[in-house]
């Protein structure tokens, strides 16, 4: 028998060994004093130098491999594991697993959808200047329009040039991004925002928003409709009806409000989910861009609101309790 077939035979046989006794007879059969491999090795001396070299190398390799197999099998079989009776119906050990916060989960999902639509993801500062949060966005000072955003102001250091605040929306990033990039723009900006208001089941002093901005020479409101319908359908994976209503935000013109309604599950009421519109020419100007050659849309959506709808969470304040009984459900 040649080395190759001996090798195949031995290794096949090794597979079926089930106890230490069998293993020992296997060892004797191949590596014992009269073993099959031993005799091959012994016969080497009768061969020519060339034959000896090639055959010898193969035979020695097989010997090392068989020793390794026997060693491994021995450990496996002699551990006694096979003999001991295991109650295989016992429950599995509890493994401690971690959980992402539901807001991270939904944000990840949102980001995935938008990157699949070729949007880039950027973030910006939460402590903002009055300029980026209001002025540059065409929200005039001392105008009731500003009251749409109840603001937390920072105590001013002496001689401060500008008032600082906790950003009330993610929209300042429209300006910051456009100041430092060249169109076309296609970005989303997730992030924490702040509102000075009494908290209740649907209001928090800090919450998350997602800003979107898409600008080129031909981006229209109809394009916004396409993007946003694609987004909501993928996020909720349900049949959704959409409704667009006129609205007012100083940094877009026209401004629209987006409502959705689930049609599959008979959750039949309209839910206000998003404000949006076409970027106002003054916003382009504030970012030192020429509005004549550019048009595009911007939108803002509350992430908690989406999470509450998607996961049926009744109270926005639950997100910020740090209660693991809540978080570990996700």
């Amino acid at each position, binding site marked *: 028998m040649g080395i190759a077939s001996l090798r195949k035979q031995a290794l096949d046989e090794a597979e079926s060994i089930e106890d230490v006794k069998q293993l020992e007879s296997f060892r004797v059969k191949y590596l014992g004093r009269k073993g099959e491999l031993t005799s091959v090795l012994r016969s080497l001396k009768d061969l020519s130098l060339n034959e000896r070299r090639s055959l010898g190398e193969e035979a020695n390799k097989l010997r090392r491999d068989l020793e390794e197999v026997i060693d491994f099998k021995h450990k496996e079989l002699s551990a006694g594991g096979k003999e001991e009776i295991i109650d295989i119906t016992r429950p599995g050990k509890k493994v401690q697993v*971690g959980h992402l916060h539901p807001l991270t989960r939904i944000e990840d999902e949102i980001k995935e959808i938008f990157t699949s639509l070729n949007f880039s993801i950027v*973030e910006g500062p939460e402590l903002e200047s009055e300029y980026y949060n209001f002025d540059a966005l065409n929200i005039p000072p001392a105008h009731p329009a500003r009251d749409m955003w109840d603001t937390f*102001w920072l105590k001013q250091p002496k001689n401060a040039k500008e008032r600082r605040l906790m950003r009330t929306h993610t929209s300042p990033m429209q300006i910051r991004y456009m100041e430092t990039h060249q169109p*076309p723009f296609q970005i989303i900006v997730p992030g924490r925002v702040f509102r000075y208001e009494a908290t209740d089941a649907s209001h928090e*002093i800090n919450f998350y928003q997602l800003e979107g901005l898409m600008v080129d020479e031909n981006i229209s409101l109809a394009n916004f409709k396409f*993007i946003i319908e694609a987004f909501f359908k993928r996020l909720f994976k349900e049949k959704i009806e959409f409704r*667009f209503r006129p609205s007012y935000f100083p940094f877009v013109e026209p401004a629209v409000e987006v409502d959705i309604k689930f049609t599959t599950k008979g959750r039949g009421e309209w839910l206000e989910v998003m404000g949006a519109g076409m970027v106002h020419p003054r916003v382009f100007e504030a970012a030192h861009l020429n509005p004549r050659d550019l048009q595009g849309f911007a939108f803002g959506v509350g992430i908690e609101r989406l999470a509450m709808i998607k996961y049926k969470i009744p109270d926005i304040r639950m997100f910020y309790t*740090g209660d693991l009984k809540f*978080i570990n459900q996700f």
Partner: protein
Amino acid sequence: MKFSYPFIKKLVPQAPVKAKLIDGLNMKAFETEPLDGDAFEVKLSPNRYSDAASHWGIAREVAAVFNLKIKVDDKKVVNFPQNKGLFKIKVLDNKLCPRYVGRLFELKKVGDSPSWMKKLLHSCGLRPINGVVDIMNYVMLETGQPLHAFDADGIEKGIIVRSAKNNEEITSLDGVRYHLDEKDIVIADGKGPLAIAGVKGGKRAEVNKNTRRIIVEAANFDQVSIYKTMKKLPLTTDASLRFSHGLNPHLALTGMDRATVLLKDILGAKVTDSMDVSAKLPGKKIIEFNVDKFNKFIGLNLDKKSVVNYLKRLGFTIQDFKKSNSFLAEPPVLRDDINIFEDLTEEVARLCGLDELKSFPPVVGLQPAEIQDDVVLKSKVKKILVGFGFSEVYNYSFTGQKDKDSSELENPISQDKKYLRTGLSLGLKGNLRTNSKDLDNMRIFEVGRVWRANSESLRLGVALKEEDALFHLKGILSRLLEGVGLTEILMKPDSKNRLLIESDNNVLGFIEVVHKNVSLAEINLGDIVLLTIGENEYRPLPKYPAIMRDISIVVPAEVRVGEVMEAIDNLSLKDVEDVDLVDYFDKFGGDSKKKSLTFRIVFRSYQKTLTDEEVEKEFSKIGQALTRLLKAVVR
């Protein structure tokens, strides 16, 4: 703002039933909700008070939305006495008061208003007072122009519109005393303030049942000034609400004419004199509308005829019809919100119906999407930690605890949320505490922004409560940092219960022992982004076997493991791949002054299989060095 459905119905006789009217406004004008009874609530946009904070305004919207005829009594009053000198009006600053229309009326009695008027006032949330005052309020609800009536015989030497003096006082109609300063505007006479301009009338010169001569005011005030006064006092009234949003000066005359008609018809009042003190009134605005540009902007496909039709329904005047696909549009005089082409597109799009818009995929040149480095890092860190059994919490950005680098809020919502957080530890400790009634062991983390000395940074905070918390934490952090691409990490003692995490001489964060079973760490993720920009690189797999040697030593209790490891490290032994602490005993042999440590040294060469002699030569240096440096006894 509240509106009466029957009144709208009177102005637009063909208007649909209330529910349908509300739907129409909702979809094509303003967010609108039904109220009990005859009323409904409209959430006006802040830029539409000039034309729409009135029943006439909403009726105009209703007529446009449903394409119906509207009928308002807005005829001009002509042929009345003017500038006879029976009373005087002096406006000191026409920036603060661009227009002041005053009319002097004589009446037989103040009387009562008719019941239909009272009813309307009621349903819009106003209280009927007397014939004169009710007409003032009614005209405001009708036209949007706030009006005020003074008892002409209570005024000394004519009306002056001026800035208030510092600490000037006024008692309002309802008996509240207000202290004013020079940023407020007052309507005054020779004796002092009669009214806080645009906000509230005063007690003095109040119209009462004996009044026989009244001066009616229909004025226009600087929006910013009224806004500031309203916020400062604070006092929001139907008048201040309208003025603070900005009204068009043309509206003053409209309101005055309407009041004149009603005062005559209802109370038989007669105009005896009048004045109109006015700065230059706003002129016409002409805006070019290009239909192709519109269709490209919105994504509709309207023809010129239908665009023109929509604008006409809203009262726009259209000129220059000959140009092929563009024309000139002149907005109605009160539409202060319409200034540029984009404003017109909104009017057309909403009236056509935003719901008519078909969704259409954007056609753009492809630019690869990018994700900001710290966003990538953040999600990597979160995934690794979740894999280690950590759950993620979100805490508030504000705290009640101050440290030397804290920034403070000017208007905190409560005392426990007065400062911006300077770290995440405080929040995490709170989470461990509140969850401890449900759980004995916990692993939690938070990723969030913190503020120190006015600069914002992105932090990771990790906390655990379990046996040997610190050592688990140290192990986890090493793996975590390795997982995000940092290999050279040092955890250096900083004080008794604190370690600094360093890499490449940068302090990345710290570890803190809170107590035996609770430890936490904070790491500045922004710093890590800068250190881990490099790419993973392949290293050849080891070809030669590793050889391990254990050394057990007994050292004085005060000797720390870190010192021993540093001493071994300083020997710079040849071919040492790794040094691990594998065993640790306090109180060696019952002696609390001694502890026993076992280290495993892994030797490996990338060139050859090491011999026992080679390993032994290097390994023996360890025992000698530790004996010499740390009074260790090798066991």
